[in-house]
């Protein structure tokens, strides 16, 4: 299971600059969340079937899995909303089933579905929640952080879906938590709002926060997560960094191109033919453990026959593909 390894931050350079010098806050091996043999049943249905988890201070931990895999159940247990059937759990050094006000002071929660107070403005809502905490962040600063400055005096009931979600995030941050749970924080966002949310989450990591993220979006996990854990049917089926999950680093590269007019697999030389894995919508896809060698052969063949192959792509298997393999294998 997870050992305290710290990897190079696995995100594009843009995210890294958004996160600033966040890595300096990380203390290797300091466990924020630890679960061992966790099982959760609803009556006869076993939603979570024995999982082990470790989340370290300062990291973004992404929890992936299909609908019904037990993600939200696990998160709600870690947030102190549920009782477990078996196993040991510690969050910020405390069993969340016995969470008290001092513990809640240090944990921020963005629930998967929760309305904002419809009859309070953004600012009033944040002030209400700020008053619940001993230490809280300045409300106006938070409004700015989540990009709701123009909407600060608008009633919660009149916000758009994306604006409400940003208020959800601000409400989770108002107590200046050490640990933040984000349950599908960008569901329903358009691409630019999602990008803005990612930069904000990267910024939270820069502040030294530990983030437990559940998501359906592979790009989101790839962009934000230090480590990924995949859950399917209540069990962990894969764990690693975005680069190493499911043996992605050892997996074969894919080369794909559109067949030139009138050309098919029968026209390929034997070496290339053997590498063809699929054909879809007029595109050939080749898999290989030695991409440069195969590309050389392919280039020679194309040049010889005068094929341009101008839409050729070479890539590692996408995180989505790895994810689908992992989750489908468990069915």
């Amino acid at each position, binding site marked *: 299971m997870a050992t305290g390894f710290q990897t190079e931050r696995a995100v594009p350079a843009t995210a890294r600059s958004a996160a600033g010098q966040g890595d300096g806050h990380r203390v290797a*091996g*300091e*466990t*924020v969340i*630890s679960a061992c043999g966790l099982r959760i049943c609803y009556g006869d249905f076993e939603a979570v079937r024995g999982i082990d988890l470790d989340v370290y*201070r300062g990291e973004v931990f992404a929890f992936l899995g299909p609908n019904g895999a037990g993600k939200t159940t696990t998160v709600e247990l870690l*947030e*102190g*909303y549920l009782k477990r059937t078996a196993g*040991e759990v*510690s969050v*910020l*050094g405390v069993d969340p089933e016995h969470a008290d*006000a*001092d513990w*809640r*002071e*240090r*944990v*921020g*929660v963005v*629930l998967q*579905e*929760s*309305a*904002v*107070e*419809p*009859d*309070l403005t953004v600012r*009033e809502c944040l*002030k*209400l*929640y700020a*008053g*619940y*905490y*001993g*230490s809280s962040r300045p409300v106006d600063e938070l409004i700015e952080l989540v990009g709701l400055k123009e909407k600060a005096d608008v*009633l919660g009931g009149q916000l758009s879906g994306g604006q409400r979600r940003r208020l959800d995030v601000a*409400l989770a941050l108002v*107590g200046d938590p*050490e640990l933040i749970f984000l349950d599908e924080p960008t569901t329903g966002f358009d691409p630019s709002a999602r990008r803005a949310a990612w930069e904000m989450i990267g910024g939270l990591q820069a502040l*030294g926060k530990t983030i437990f993220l559940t998501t359906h979006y592979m790009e989101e996990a790839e962009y934000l997560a230090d480590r990924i854990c995949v859950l399917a049917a209540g069990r962990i089926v894969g764990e690693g960094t975005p680069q190493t999950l499911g043996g992605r680093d050892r997996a074969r590269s894919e080369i794909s191109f559109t067949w030139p007019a009138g050309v098919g697999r029968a026209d390929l030389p034997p070496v290339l033919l053997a590498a063809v894995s699929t054909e879809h919508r007029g595109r050939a896809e080749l898999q290989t453990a030695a991409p440069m060698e195969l590309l050389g052969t392919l280039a020679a063949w194309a040049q010889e026959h005068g094929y341009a192959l101008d839409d050729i792509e070479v890539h590692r298997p996408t995180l989505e593909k790895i994810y689908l393999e992992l989750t489908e294998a468990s069915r």
Partner: protein
Amino acid sequence: MSVYTAPHPRSPRRPAHALVAHQVRYDGLAFLRNRQSRFFTLALPVLFLVILCAIFGNGTVRVAGGEIKESTYYVPGLVAYGVISASFMNLVISVTAQRESGILKRRRSTPVPAWVLIAGRSVVAVGTGAAIAVILMLIGAVVYGATVPGRTIPAICVSIAVGAITFCALGFALVTAIKSADSAQPVIQLVTLPLLFISGVFVPSDVMPRWLLDVSNFFPVRHLQQALLKGFNPHTVGAGFAWHDLLILAIWGAVGLAIAIWRFSWKPRAR
């Protein structure tokens, strides 16, 4: 499992009474902003008083000790209605909506104690009930010449307080039986409307058959109306405390509170 240490110390939270005051401030603000709350809780009792006095204003009603003007009779009845509307009907609808939309669940993820949330919402309900009582008394006296009590004002205040707290407890209890926000409104009408009609709030009880009075005497609405009527009845001698009615109200309140503590859920139930 390594030991986790908090990175920085935290300031102490506000004391409990300040937390309740904080909650009351924002729950009160939200109540006043909500058009539905304002209409059903503040405007409707006044409208009922105007309509009932317009229809029956010049007649008399037989009560303990003699006869009184219909308007004098309707003021305590509609004060009872106002209290029930604020601390029971409005509370059930708004708390169910807050539970089903996840607002209560989110509030519970913060350090605020559960009892502060319940107390805050109850104070708003009791305060609203008291405000509507004062408004109805003033309108009754100024517009319809209803008798203004003097000596019995402490008894009226106690009756309003006991009634409001009782119906808050019953409200939190009823919320536990409602499964979705959509069913809150029909359930609340089903529970309260018949009781309001048989308890002398809209129809004077001197015209009602004995068996119907026996039924209404079991439920709390009648006892709040009777306790308030005793305070407003000019024939009442002494301080006007209806101890018997207040006791029955308190028993209902205690039962409601027990059910609420036993069954109250902070999480949505419909999903």
